[in-house]
């Protein structure tokens, strides 16, 4: 039975290895959207953030495409990629900073920053390619422009009297992130393949040598049989 167990391990390992070699070519998409702003002031705002969490201890790179919809009047928009730990440390400070200070801080703590380009009157797009995911990252968009009419803006404005005809509901800003992750094979995985292969082979050989109809012994007998050579022609 040990021989069969060894074979099970070897078969399973064979297919697992095939999977491993194909992993860098497989890039399924996943899309996550952030709705609204986390901070919005008169002339600048930060979108709700997206957390990219790394679940496996393998080499991962990702291509990210952010598409923002219902964007108000924007002069400048930048997508920042910030390590989660760094962002957590600075998150509370951001609320009390001025526009230039926020921009300076984000540039300082980010590992990548890509400016957005307008693709339609109310939408923006940013593409970040080959982002190495060595730790959990935060994706956050910084926008500069006129946000005075954006719902939830924090400034002291005297409220206007209610209009006689109700206005149409405001279109809320949202940003969708399309993420294509690529898993790469490292030395660790190859080492584990070798470890499991050794265990599987050891089980197979041990089990086979213990069994009565040993395949290895049969192979040895077969190979040791000297085939009679043909008589030479004169």
């Amino acid at each position, binding site marked *: *039975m040990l021989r*069969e*167990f060894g*074979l*099970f*391990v070897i*078969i*399973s*390992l*064979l*297919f*697992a*290895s*095939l*999977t*491993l070699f*194909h*992993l860098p070519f*497989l*890039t*399924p998409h*996943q899309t*996550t*959207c*952030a*709705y609204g702003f986390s901070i919005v002031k008169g002339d600048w705002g930060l979108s*709700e*953030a*997206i*957390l*990219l*969490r*790394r*679940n*496996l*201890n*393998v080499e*991962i790179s*990702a291509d990210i495409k952010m598409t923002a919809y219902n964007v108000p009047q924007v002069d400048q928009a930048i997508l920042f990629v910030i390590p*989660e730990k760094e962002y*957590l440390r600075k*998150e509370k400070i951001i609320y009390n900073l001025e526009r230039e200070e926020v921009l300076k801080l984000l540039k300082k703590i980010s590992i990548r920053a890509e400016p957005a380009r307008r693709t339609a009157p109310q939408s923006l797009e940013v593409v970040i390619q080959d982002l190495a*995911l060595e730790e959990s990252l*935060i994706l956050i968009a910084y926008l500069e422009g006129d946000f005075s009419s954006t719902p939830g803006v924090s400034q002291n404005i005297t409220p206007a009297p209610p209009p006689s005809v109700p206005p149409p509901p405001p279109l809320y800003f949202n940003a969708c*992130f399309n*993420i*294509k*992750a*690529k*898993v790469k094979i490292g030395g660790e*995985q190859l080492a*584990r*393949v070798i470890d*499991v292969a050794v265990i599987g082979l050891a089980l197979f050989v041990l089990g086979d040598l213990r*069994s009565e*109809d040993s395949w290895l012994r049969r192979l040895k007998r077969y190979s040791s049989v000297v085939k009679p050579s043909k008589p030479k022609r004169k």
Partner: protein
Amino acid sequence: MRSKALLHSTYIVGMLSKELLIAMAALSIVQTVFLSMMLPNIAVEATPYYTGGFVTPQIRLILAPVLGITGFLYAIVTLIAAAQLGLELERGDATIYLSHPISRSSYVLSWIIASLIIPSTMFFISLAIPLLVVEPRLLFGVSGEEMLLLVLQVLTGGFIVLAASLLFKKRSLALASGFFEYLILPLIMTIALAIFFSLVHNVTPSARDVLWLAILYPYNYLVMFNHLGARWIEAAAANIPVLLALIVFVILYAKRRLEVG
């Protein structure tokens, strides 16, 4: 007794080795194809970020489709392997084995090992090795409770097939009873439940109302009624007495009532 059972089960495994290896290859292919398609999305998880951070990674739920599909294959392999006992009794081969110094209980125990324990091990190996190679931490991400319930459900089906093999001494009848229990009866039960709940409009069903389903199908119960608050421990508690009763029945019947010839 144990060594004789092991010896005979080794012989059975050797006899079925070609079929078992094909099944193992099929299990591994399905497992690895699904895993390879899902791995990049398991590797990176994108979620809206809220202050205070993200807390629970949900790897367990991500791997659930793999378990669902290969679990089905595992069940089919187990049922077919268990029905081979019926074939052996039908052809009268059992008489030859039992003419050797091997007790009836050892004989049945060897079939339990070969037809139920070996496929379960195959299922575990085919799932564990790809995960082990890619990232051992993923092994702990696979829901242990889900795996346990799946194994309990398949073992229940396997023991029903073994019992049918002993009772009818016919492979076809044993297989038919196994397939009816594992594939058709859950469908009938689900349709009956759907009709019942559509007729009773004012009652919101809870998972406990349908706990009786877990007697034979603990895994199906957990998957189907997870949203209603189904708990794995209740499902296991409902199934384990039935499974134990089946085991006792199979062993006692083989010991006292099994006649071959």
